[in-house]
Structures are given as structure tokens and as C-alpha cells.
């Protein structure tokens, strides 16, 4: 049946052009000789050179990376626990409130989350800076981790845990030796998601950050407000480049694993 009609092809192609054209243009103009981002004046790498000489941006990048690594790791641990709690324990006191608190941050406008966290830190007299940004990032990104891990746990065959218990593994050992390795890919992609969210965040960081803890998005934002410059284009291109390389490596790896797996399965069925 699957006829991929012309209408279907057209809507997919147009949709994807819409999604990618702005990014492509941004990358192209980062190699522009002219300072004007809208007039092409020949190929040049000079904006990349000036980018690496911009100490402010470099410092901000370093802060961002550290915040992202720490917050993604903690958020993954907390989010995985929350996912386990939601899928494994269908009844406990306050479960409704708990699931509400897990899902609400997914759609909560960032200005509200940012403001409320800031007011919390002020209320408990906590100085704003690196730690508060990290705490804020953990809070909103752990919920995304929960959703990713939870969807894996829902399709998880509980009988393999029972099998481990049946074969003499204690519950804790069962979790460490069976459950965790099996859900590891989902936990990893939760971590990646948390990392990206943290690298990307502007609004919540702006509210919760203090002097000395300026993140890259905050820096980019303040420069963008002053006007579009090819230097920012260059910075963005590098970020996009990192993501693109990461995604390409990941997809090649999964593709290869998939092919290997299919080959194995065929061999298994042929050789019965």
C-alpha cells in the first residue's frame, strides 16, 4: 500500500527546508568576509580568529560547559530515580503531586521557573552564582530525563528482574546487574538531553546567575542585542558543528549496530 504520494513528499521536503534553511544561512554567513551578515563578500575565516581572541566568550563557554556537565549528571541520577518511582510504585502517598511536579516543568514558561528559583535563593539567603545556576538547571532538566527513562521503563519486561531474583540476586543486585544495564541507553540519552538543555538555556540562567557565572547563551544574547555580528555566527557554527558531529557519530553507530543485529538474527534463524 505504502504509496508515498507527491503531496506527502512535497510537505516533508518543504517542512524540512523551513527547518534547516535558517541554520544553513547562518553557517554560510559565518564565513563571510564582510561585516554585514546579509551581503556576501567572499570566503574568510577571520571571524573564527577573532572569536578565539574574545576572552569574554571563551570564559563564558567554559562556565557553560562545567554547569552543563555537572547539572546533566545530577539531573540524570535524580530523573532516573523519579522515573523508577513513577513506573514501579503505582501507589504511594502524594504520587499525584509527584507526577504533577515531574510533568509541569516540561511546559512551564521559563520566565516563571527562573523567577521562582531566583526568589527561592534570595529567600534562603543563598548568593547567586555558579552553584545556583547549576541547581536551577538540575531542577528543570531532571524532568526531561524522567520522561525519557520512564518511556523505556514502561516497555521494560519486568520478568527479567523476576528471573534475576529467582536465580538468587538480591533486589539491589538485580537493579545494578540487570535493570540498570538494560535501561542504560535511555539513561544516556536522558543525560545528553539534559546536557543540551543546560548548554542552551538563557532565561533561567539569566535569573539565577550572579556575577562571575555568565553562561555562553547569556553572553551571546547580550551581544545579539547590540546587533548581529559574524563573530556570533562563527560561535553558533562551532556549536552546531559539535552537535552535528555528535549526532552523525551516534547515528553511524546505531546504524552499524542495527545492521549487525539483523545479520545476526538472519544467521540465527537460518542456522536453527
Amino acid at each position, binding site marked *: 500500500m505504502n504509496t508515498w504520494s507527491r503531496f506527502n*513528499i512535497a*510537505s516533508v521536503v518543504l*517542512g524540512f527546508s523551513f527547518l534547516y534553511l535558517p*541554520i544553513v544561512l547562518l553557517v554560510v554567513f559565518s564565513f563571510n568576509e564582510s561585516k554585514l551578515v546579509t551581503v556576501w563578500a567572499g570566503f574568510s575565516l577571520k571571524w573564527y580568529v577573532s572569536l578565539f581572541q574574545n576572552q569574554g566568550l571563551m570564559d563564558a563557554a567554559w562556565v557553560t560547559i562545567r554547569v552543563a556537565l555537572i547539572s546533566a549528571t545530577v539531573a540524570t541520577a535524580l530523573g532516573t*530515580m523519579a522515573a523508577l518511582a513513577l513506573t514501579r510504585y503505582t501507589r504511594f502517598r502524594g504520587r499525584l503531586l509527584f507526577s504533577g511536579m515531574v510533568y*509541569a516543568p516540561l511546559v512551564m514558561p521559563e520566565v516563571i521557573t527562573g*523567577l521562582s528559583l531566583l526568589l527561592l535563593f534570595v529567600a534562603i539567603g543563598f548568593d547567586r552564582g555558579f552553584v545556583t545556576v547549576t541547581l536551577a538547571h538540575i531542577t528543570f532538566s531532571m524532568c526531561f530525563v524522567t520522561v525519557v527513562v520512564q518511556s523505556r521503563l514502561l516497555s521494560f519486561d519486568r520478568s527479567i528482574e523476576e528471573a534475576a531474583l529467582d536465580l538468587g540476586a538480591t533486589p539491589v543486585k538485580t537493579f545494578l546487574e540487570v535493570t540498570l544495564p538494560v535501561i542504560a541507553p535511555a539513561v544516556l540519552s536522558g543525560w545528553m538531553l539534559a546536557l543540551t538543555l543546560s548548554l542552551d538555556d538563557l532565561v533561567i540562567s539569566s535569573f539565577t546567575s550572579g556575577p562571575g557565572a555568565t553562561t555562553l547563551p547569556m553572553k551571546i544574547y547580550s551581544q*545579539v542585542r547590540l546587533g548581529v555580528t559574524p563573530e556570533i555566527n562563527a560561535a*553558533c557554527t562551532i556549536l552546531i558543528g559539535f552537535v552535528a558531529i555528535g549526532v552523525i557519530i551516534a547515528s553511524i553507530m546505531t546504524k552499524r549496530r542495527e545492521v549487525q543485529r539483523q545479520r545476526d538474527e538472519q544467521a540465527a534463524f537460518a542456522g536453527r
Partner: protein
Amino acid sequence: MNKLGSAIFSRLVIIIPYAWLLFFFLIPFFIVFRISLSTTAIAQPPYEPAFAWSDGLSGIWEKMGQFSFDNYIWLTEDSLYFNAYMSSIWIAGVSTLVTLLIGYPIAYGMAQAPRTLRPTLLMLVILPFWTSFLIRVYAWIAILKPEGLLNQFLMNIGIIDQPLIIMNTNWAIYIGIVYSYLPFMVLPLYSALEKMDNTLIEAAQDLGCPQISAFWKITFPLSIPGVVAGCMLVFIPAVGEFVIPDLLGGSQTLMIGKTLWNEFNANRDWPVSAAVATILLLILVVPIVFFQNAQAKAEEQGR
């Protein structure tokens, strides 16, 4: 350790994230509410607390009478806020609708694509999500400016001879929201459409239903959970959006996220911005609960 260990283990799995979210997500809302009832002061922090936790319960009760709803009254008196709320809801609503109209054909086309192509297409939808939101909004500035790439292109092919003024208008905000949130719409729609059994359409056609009406009678109704999820994922954050109106909408746009930001950072009026946030939250409670029910239902089905 075993029995005791596992009991503690299962307790901790619940308690740790629960406590974290209570402290960093729920309690801050109460603090926001509390500050929204206090009065502005030139101090650090810049407000007079309406009541202090140290007052104890009776003390708080006593001070309840002195609660200042001034900030809320202020919000109703200054039409700026009312207009900002209304225009936020309007802009988010229109953008959500446009995103749905653009996103549905894309998701449908993806779901109909050859099976081997689908994972790649899915990845292509997710990919922009991994690149910075800020960068993607920023990319549009160069396109929409009066001397930007869109106008250059349109003038070169001779459709227009005067540059279109899009930048710093609501049009730019619509484009920005639709563009940024499109993947959030496509993903739930795709997962709803992809699960659909193609034989249902074949059965409908076999029973004499033409292709287009088979779509409206079978495919669309079955994809409604995806439509709801997608619309909520776009609408709710779009109402409180800050970056897009700030970068693309220019100075005279009214959106509540931007108003809140300005109230807080430029005017340093914390109580009023807390009141703004409280009202925004109240407006969004209905769609958020709606979204959560949909999530819970999906979770139930997945079980």
C-alpha cells in the same frame, strides 16, 4: 542487609527526587505568591515581606489582614498588563494553530514515508532541537531584517520593490514561534500517526469511503491525542515566551514573558513581577492540567 536494604532503596528512589522537586519547584511558587503580596521597597532584596516564616502560624494569620493586594490591583489598573496577557494568549494561540497546520502534513508525510526512511526523517526533526534555541531565533534576524536575505531575494525576483517590514513586528514573532516550536508539534503527531494501522484506511476504502474522507473520518480522529499533546507543548511555553518577542518583536511588542522580564530586570519591581508570574501561572493552570491528564493517560496505556 538484603530485606532492609531493598526497603531503604525503594524508599530513597521516591524520597530523593520528591524532596528535590518539592524544594526547588513547588516551594518557590509559594515564595513567588508571598512576595507578590508584599510592597516594593528600595532595599536589597527590593521588597518588604508580607509575612515572615519566623512569625509562626499565629503571626502569619495576624498579618493576613494586612496583606497587600496592591500589586494585583495595580495589574488591573494599568491596561499594559491586561493587554500583554491578552496579546500573549492571542499570539500563542494563532502560532499554535499555524504550527499545527504546517506540522500535520509534515508528520503525515513522514508517517507515510517508506519504512527504511522513517528513522532518518525522525532524526532530522529532532536534530534542530539539539541546536541552541537562541541560535535558531538569532538566525531569523538576518533573514527578516529590512535589508535582510528574504527581502533581497523577493526584490531580486521582482515580487516586491519595497522591502517588507517584518522584523520588529508581530509577524516576526509568529514566524519565530512557529519555526522554533515546529518539532514539538511534529513529534507527537508523528508518533500518533505512525502507530496507525494502514489497514484501517484500506478497510474504509473497501467499504466505499473515498480517500480524502477516509482521512477525515479515520486518520484524523485517531490522531487527536497527538494533536492535543502537540498543541499543548507549543501553546503553554509560547504564552510565556521571552526570547522570541525580545529578539524578533522589537520594543513595542506586548508579551507577558517580556513584560515580566522588564519589570524584574529593568524596573526592579519584584513584587509586581511576582504578581505577574502568579497570574500567568493561574492562566496556564488549565492547559497544564489538561496536558498532564493526557500524559497520565498515555502512561496508563503504555503500562
